[in-house]
């Protein structure tokens, strides 16, 4: 599962933030889960439970999750939309490609208003670090 690699990134970045702020024991890390990437939360949590050992500051940390809807904005026509339904309607193979590399969404999705593939992902792309709390 490639969520493991993302868990390592979260732990590494959270550790950096803790170090920068002089936090010895991180109480809580809030993680944003962008719906575009469709990260498997259970797999990510499993990864976090193991790779947290990389940084003693995270030994007692609680990991909290916020779902971040995939929000897209069409450049030519200005239409904005969330991807939830149309993402679910894609074939499994296409969703897997977007899961592995969210930018390839441009190859599978078009603007529902004007059919252009030239849109911006304005939110909800992938895994983000929302907060590192002492």
């Amino acid at each position: 599962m490639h969520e493991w690699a993302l868990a390592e990134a979260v732990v590494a970045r959270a550790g950096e933030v803790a170090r920068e702020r002089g936090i010895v024991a991180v109480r809580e890390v809030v993680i944003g889960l962008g719906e575009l990437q469709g990260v498997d939360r259970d797999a990510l949590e499993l990864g976090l439970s193991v790779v947290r050992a990389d940084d003693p500051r995270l030994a007692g940390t609680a990991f909290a999750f916020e779902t971040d809807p995939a929000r897209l904005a069409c450049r030519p026509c200005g239409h904005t939309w969330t991807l939830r339904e149309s993402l679910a309607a894609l074939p499994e193979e296409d969703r897997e490609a977007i899961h592995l590399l969210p930018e390839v969404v441009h190859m599978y999705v078009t603007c529902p208003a004007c059919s252009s593939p030239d849109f911006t992902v304005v939110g909800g792309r992938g895994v983000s670090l929302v907060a590192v709390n002492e």
Partner: protein
Amino acid sequence: MDPRPAVVARRLARVGRIVAVTGGKGGIGKSSIAVGLALGLARDGARVGLLDLDLWGPSDHVILGVRRPGLREDGGLVPDLVAGVVFMSIVSIVGERAALLRGDDITNAILELLAVTIWGELDVLVVDMPPGFGDTLLDAVRYLPRAEYVVVATPSELTLETTRRTLELLARLQVPIVGLVENLRRDRDASVAGRLSAAGAVRALGTIHYDDDYEPSLGDPVRLAGTRFMAEAGAVARRVRDTPAEPVAERP
């Protein structure tokens, strides 16, 4: 906050050298040289990775003869070995679909690939760069600070000016340059390195001549291995292997 940059260095911690193959123009043979370097280094016994960062026009897989390079999910994305080289390309993920990516998407996609690709232990990672001086080059400079650059040029007057600009830009970006590979030379052509040297020294890594046997060998690494192209690319690969990049401070 984006957590991915924090893990890129760790992903490349067991990679000895990172050699980025670049050049200002399209069609001058960057992919051919990148693949030739990777195959040449691997043939000489090195553990080699190849990352095709030409997200708009990936072609390394065509040279290597794989329609869709494989990968497996195991703690990240683990690319398959192709012709003795650990090979990662956007084609592994999207197959033959055309990539429609703006600058921010390019940056995000490169960062994602660097954050999740598990290369393992390599002597050299060869990175095939897209043409030009755009987002990919700046992203490589930012996220691959250890990368050393091999510049590809052809004898055409059309590429000479761009090659000068490429060398100047890399110097301004303060990245190490391994040297220049002269590609697609015909017997009547004057040396690129010779014509460039008037403007400032750049180490010549070797010449690869136009080879009629190259095109028919595309997609067949075994046949490619027997070509003049590969003999010359192999010599360049050994030169790269034995040549430390010019320290930034010593360049003019």
